[in-house]
């Protein structure tokens, strides 16, 4: 395996002085960091540290009261999730959000939604341009199915699948949008060791093969330190560490946050 000490020189997304509060609760205060194009960036922190809130800000689901997010050189203040998706940001959720009654294939196909160009009329008839387009999309989806090694569950309704496979299908749906930035909210939560190893491999392969930039939230420190290029550490809505895994691992503030030293 090649060393993961890699060099990046283009900022894909930067977060500047973000603050977010819900009523009196400060979820994030004055957070700044950046994500380089092509890297795997992890956000870690104890429960309630504001990790998911951070992801929700990036993806336009929450609107921070202060600060700005610059994505691909464009500063934005308010953006809606579908706009984020159109600009190439896809995500998976901490609690799987798939269409349980639909097959794996159809679920991943929904990830192509934004890229479908033909109108409702043709799509309803499933002829002409709509049929051609569907074949193109199906090709992309089949490549993803092959990539994630889920051929055997292609036609199985996802509600019947074990948890680990559902997570993989969800990743597949996010990939179907051909994102530039992929946000993964705890992709390995609740998995056993083998499933975690598989998922790690898929995350690394997505990054390698498609050059997708990945920002992930994860609790398993082993996983984080192994696969990420850089790590941001949040605690109680504040950034307490930022850097390559080796630096973060030895950072005093980080150790304290994780070992639960009294504040």
């Amino acid at each position: 395996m090649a060393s993961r000490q890699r060099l990046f020189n283009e900022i894909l997304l930067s977060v500047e002085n973000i603050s977010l509060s819900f009523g009196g609760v400060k979820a994030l205060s004055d957070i700044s960091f950046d994500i380089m194009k092509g890297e795997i960036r992890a956000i870690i922190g104890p429960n309630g540290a504001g990790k998911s809130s951070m992801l929700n800000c990036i993806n336009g689901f929450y609107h921070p009261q202060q600060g700005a997010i610059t994505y691909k050189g464009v500063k934005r203040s308010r953006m809606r999730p579908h706009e984020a998706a159109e600009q190439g940001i896809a995500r998976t959720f901490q609690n799987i959000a798939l269409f349980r009654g639909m097959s794996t294939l159809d679920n991943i196909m929904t990830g192509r939604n934004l890229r479908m160009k033909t109108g409702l009329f043709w799509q309803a008839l499933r002829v002409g341009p709509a049929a051609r387009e569907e074949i193109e999309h199906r090709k992309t989806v089949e490549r993803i199915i092959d990539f994630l090694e889920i051929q055997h569950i292609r036609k199985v309704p996802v509600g019947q699948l074990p948890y680990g496979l559902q997570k993989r299908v969800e990743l597949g749906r996010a990939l179907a949008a051909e994102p530039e930035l992929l946000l993964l909210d705890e992709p390995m939560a609740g998995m056993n060791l083998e499933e975690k190893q598989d998922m790690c491999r898929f995350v690394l392969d997505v990054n390698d093969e498609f050059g997708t930039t990945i920002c992930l939230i994860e609790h398993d420190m082993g996983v984080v330190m192994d696969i990420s290029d850089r790590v941001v550490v949040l605690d109680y809505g504040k950034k307490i560490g930022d850097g390559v895994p080796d630096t973060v691992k030895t950072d005093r503030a980080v150790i304290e946050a994780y070992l639960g030293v009294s504040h």
Partner: protein
Amino acid sequence: MTAASSSEADTFPKLLVGLAGTRPHAPAYREKEYGIWQTYDWAHVAAQVNRLAAGLVDLGFARGERLIVIGDNRPRLYWAMAAVQSLGGVPVPVYQDSVTEELAYVVDHAGARYAIAENQEQIDKLLEIQKSVPSLATLIYDDARGLRYYQGLLSYDEVLERGAKRLQVSPGLVADEVAKGRGGDDAIMLYTSGTTGRPKGAVLSHDNLVWAAKAGAEFDGLKAGDELLSYLPMAWVGDHLFSYAQGHVVGLVVNCPESAATVLTDLREIGPTYYFAPPRVLENLITQVMIRMEDASVLKRRLFQYFMALARTVGPALIDGRPVGPLDRLLYRLGDLLVYGPLKNTLGMSRVRVAYTAGEAVGPEIFNFYRSLGVNMKQLYGQTEASVFVTIHPDGEVYSDTVGKPVSKVELRIAESGEVLYRSPGVFKEYFKNPQATSDTKTEDGWVHTGDAGYLDERGHLKIIDRAKDVGKLNDGTLFAPKFIENKLKFFPHINEAVTFGHGRDFVAAFVNIDMVAVGDWAERRNIAYASYQELAAHPAVCDLIQQEIERVNRDLAHDPRMAGAQIRRFLILHKALEADDGELTRTNKVRRGFIGERYKVLVDALYSGARDVHIKVDMTFEDGRKGTIEGDVAIRDLVPQHAMPLEQAS
């Protein structure tokens, strides 16, 4: 080979060139990729093989050299074997799931400088091996996924490109090499994993395999265009013969599944006409059908039960061409419309003309299930050393307790010891770099020791009873074949494992392991509560259940004069499941009889001392690796022998 046939193609590369000429646009291989079956015709295959072979020349591949092939069944890997053979080389397919050290032994022993691997998983193993076996110089991969940052590898496509360049300069490069090939040349080397010692590399020549492929094809009337699903390991002689050798000799269509997990779906989509499955696969298929029937509506379940009962009586007769009454015929037709047809379609067996099973003993219920549906299921007996075929069931003469009649040109002999020996044109050349093992197995005049004990019955069929070294004798001289009896026991779903004793004893006694799932289910339906395996195994009702099954086995044994004296007279149900972790089973789940005999000596002694029950305490390893002890009382039951045949002088 005779002078007349020497003008014919006597090697696989020549056969391939022939097929590309006579059937250029007929499908040769199919592979499901991206959800669609991609088809390659013979012309395409020949061109790819030609180019790949030229690429190997460019890499310095020499005549007689060996090349490791490792991966799932993929057309490109089959083509790699043809390319190697085109240059007079010997492909060595190895099991894709073998661990690094097993693989390292084979790579080193074969002296291979080249390897073609399917993907990263295999490349990782080969790179590890390179450290200790530096002679392995060139690694070629097919699927580039995950290999982006690897150094010093070649891709299959790069080799093809190199080949294309070489062919531009000298177009006849590979054709000349193909022409130099002779039928007597080594065609393939297959490592057989013996139960003891290091694996041995059996070398088969083109003549061996071409003969075997033809003999099998003639025996069962295979024809060009017959479809086959290649889903068993490429390193196994069966796959090599069916997919590769018969593929080239007959012109079969070889279909490669999308992945190991999709085989059943792929089977249904392809609907092969020629099918092979080991007993374990056939058994799993039935279990799945039965489970789904349990969930079906009452009407469907009734229909299924009624027509399956009919099929059991009428089906085999119909397939064998024996007389069947008009009413039964009509009902069977109706059954075919309502049950058998749809079921065969689900199993992917609608179009099967010839199906084989082999490898281990197959339960009569399992075997007859398929035959009663109208699937022409047969058993065959074969070995790597025989290029597979020794005996096959001829049409109309299929019996679940035999393995059929010798294929033409195969001679059979039963040695004094009861061991089966054969001689045929398919007999292997040698074990690579192992003259000792070769001469131990193959006699000067070409007879091969199978290591299996068996006999020819009055119908001229071969019956295999056990491994020759395991066959013993009771004190009264009765033949005692432990595996033969154990297999009969294991055919019952409630019995998971059985160990029998009897060599040098007065009678046969048995240890039984219950099947936790099947017996657990049985107990649940009868409101029998239990908390553990041990509790369930010790329950008197379970003991009664097992006793009935053993009595059926005894009745069965009583029918065979050779075996009647070897009925089980006493048995006990072990208080713990036999585990590979405790060394009681091999990693391939075969019982280690000797070890078990020593470990449970207290129990064995009790079986032969007349005790009614016995207390036992043994060490065991838990699933997480912790050690502990398990102890308990085990009850012993006596059985009355079935007197269908006289017991005295049964031998």
